[in-house]
């Protein structure tokens, strides 16, 4: 997306003139220095955080902890992904947390009471999310009530709904093995490697095809060396991760073996790739950005603004449903607190920390994943530190501020250069 096209004129963009791997690096360095940093600040914040925890608690760097990280952060990350769509419009969904609770409760209740197979129950849960999103979106887009108020009302109502569904506060256990596997089981090691190979191959193929097609049209394309480099980096880091996750991490290998990539990892990856495609490569995604950036301009361009808004809420609530399913799976149960307490704030926080703007028009699904990682690492690391209740709150707040501060200071340099 960042390819630079020279039109007649004099000012110089170093890299675009002769795209080569060296020039591409120079251009990237220049972009970063000039302030266009993409995901860099969030990644930086994440690295600082990991370093701090690794020094404080060596067990932070063990294979088992690495695997835990993914399952711990999964639900929040998935909900945050959905929230990105609503935030892109400059709206908010306060009810996403409890919506995930409602959908989880629907899953649990249908599993227990109807005896239908797991996939039907999951579908019911997601369908519940779709209905919720449609109602919320319609109230916002058609009736014109501010989303903060609509979703605050929903936030209250869904608390009640969860209570009704779980019969006034009882706790429903989920006994379905497949549902419970999502957040508690791992892929067999060979399957992890197979998926890894597939991902790398697809990535390489897409990159190559794109470059070929652009070259054919006479547009500036990435040089082969650069593509090779990117694919190589992906292969290296993803390979390291898969290898780490395939290590034996049981504390009692004799008793039970614990290896492989947690099942949530491919789930999150698929969602990430899918929604990124939707946002970046479909007309719907483009229109979402347009409405968020300048609603009036979008309307004048003939974009059905109301429909876009409703769709965003539908996506948000359905992703909340998926998040609810993951949470239910992880807890193997649903109770009235599912999706409550800090879930919503953490999810919105994850999206914002990743770089999504609350004013709309700016954000990526990847932001939610990066921000979700920050939140998960903080929770995970703080869990290792063993502080008392009050100190833990204090330290968690400070650590969050630290991670966001690194990010903010990095971005501030960009703003100073006149790039906003």
């Amino acid at each position, binding site marked *: 997306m960042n390819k630079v096209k020279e039109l007649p004129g004099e000012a110089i963009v170093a890299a675009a003139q002769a795209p080569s791997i060296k020039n591409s690096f120079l251009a990237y360095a220049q972009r970063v220095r000039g302030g266009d940093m993409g995901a860099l600040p969030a990644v930086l914040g994440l690295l600082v955080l990991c370093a701090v925890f690794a020094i404080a608690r060596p067990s932070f760097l063990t294979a088992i902890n690495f695997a835990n990280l993914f399952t711990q952060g999964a639900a929040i990350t998935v909900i945050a992904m959905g929230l990105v769509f609503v935030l892109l419009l400059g709206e908010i969904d306060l009810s996403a947390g409890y919506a995930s609770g409602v959908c989880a409760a629907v899953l649990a209740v249908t599993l227990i009471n109807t005896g239908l197979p797991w996939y039907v129950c999951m579908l019911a849960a997601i369908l519940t999310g779709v209905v919720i999103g449609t109602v919320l979106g319609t109230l916002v887009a058609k009736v014109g009530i501010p989303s903060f108020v609509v979703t605050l009302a929903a936030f209250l109502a869904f608390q009640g709904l969860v209570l009704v569904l779980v019969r006034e506060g009882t706790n429903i256990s989920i006994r379905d093995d497949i549902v419970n596997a999502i957040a508690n089981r791992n892929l067999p090691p060979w399957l992890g490697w197979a998926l890894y190979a597939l991902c790398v191959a697809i990535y390489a193929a897409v990159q190559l095809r794109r470059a070929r097609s652009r070259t054919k049209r006479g547009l500036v394309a990435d040089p082969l060396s650069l593509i090779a480099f990117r694919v190589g980096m992906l292969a290296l880091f993803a390979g390291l991760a898969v290898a780490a996750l395939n290590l034996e991490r049981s504390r009692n290998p004799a008793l039970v073996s614990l290896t492989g990539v947690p099942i949530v990892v491919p789930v999150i990856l698929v969602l990430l790739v899918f929604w990124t495609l939707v946002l970046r490569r479909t007309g719907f995604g483009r229109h979402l950005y347009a409405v968020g950036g300048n609603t009036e301009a979008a309307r004048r361009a003939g974009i059905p603004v109301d429909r876009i808004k409703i769709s965003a809420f539908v996506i948000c609530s359905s992703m909340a449903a998926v998040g609810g399913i993951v949470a239910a799976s992880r807890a193997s149960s649903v109770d*009235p*607190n599912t999706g409550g307490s800090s879930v919503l704030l953490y999810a919105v926080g994850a999206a914002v920390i990743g770089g999504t703007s609350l004013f709309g028009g700016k954000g990526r699904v990847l932001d939610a994943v990066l921000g979700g990682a920050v939140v998960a690492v903080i*929770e995970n690391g703080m869990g290792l530190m*063993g502080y*008392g209740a009050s100190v833990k*709150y204090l330290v968690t707040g400070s650590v969050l501020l630290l991670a966001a501060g690194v990010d903010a200071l990095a971005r501030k340099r960009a703003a100073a250069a006149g790039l906003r």
Partner: protein
Amino acid sequence: GDSGQTTSTSTSSATEAAKAGKVGVILPDSKSSARWETADRKYLEEAFKAAGVQYDIQNAQNDKTAFQTIADQMITNGATVLMIVNLDSGTGKTVIDKAKSQGVATIDYDRLTLGGGAAYYVSFDNTKVGTLQGEGLSKCLTDKKADKPIVAYLNGSPTDNNATLFKAGYDGVLKPKFDGGEYVKGPEQSVPEWDNTQAGTLFEQMLTEQPKIAGVLAANDGLGNAAITVLKKNKLNGKVPVTGQDATVQGLQNILSGDQCMTVYKAVKKEADAAAKLAVALAKGEKPTASSSVKDPESGQDVPAELMEPQAIYFDNVKDVVADGYVTKEELCTGDFAAKCTEAGIS
């Protein structure tokens, strides 16, 4: 206080401790009751330190996700015994299952994880707590010679299973009286998250709608105090008996001043000591035996258990709580309460 570094090693028997393994304790929250952070943590720490066992005590802050994360982290950190106060049975069971699969021994502390199959269960009888509250309220109403009194309920959090157990307890005592026409059932509300501020508004509205309320079954001292504040505003304090639980300084003071009728004292130290004893034994690789057992209604299995008896506290036996060291005289007998303390025989 100084809960900054809880992962401490005993100095006296470091080598033995290293062999002995490590105990992880997860407390549920710090807001529904002050006991977890002020009492349980203190007593458990003391017991573990005395036994020279490594320990790690954390609080899940009423967050299920955090609860599971902490459990993961404790196992990662090398705990060999896991003692949990579950937030709900589902997450509790997941944690226990995970721990068992890793060869980590488990203890249910204060709350039984239904269907969880923990190795031991140490607790007060929560239904019994409710029964004491119901009986206490009846006693106070009888003392006030109330005729067909209207009794209002301020239940605990609708999402807290313990609140359900308390309610079962006091319903067991009071429902027959409602049915028999001796008492009249008044308005009833569950207080979200045991929030005292909301409890105040809820009770104020109950009183507006039903001005003749003559007795309040409040599930703990905080809720009781919220009701008392509203009663005070209407100059009804002392005339309408209010119950409580936890024997907090505030609750005991309200009892001394006559605004509260009773509270339920749970000798946390006994509970903590019993649990710590089991945990230390497990950490050292022993297989301790429990004094009794409890039937898990869900799995039908018998869980070895240590059960403590809660105690009802009225004006006359407030001194027991002080004598137990659960509350100090300095905290309790401040200012105007000094005279009352003397009256109640606290020295």
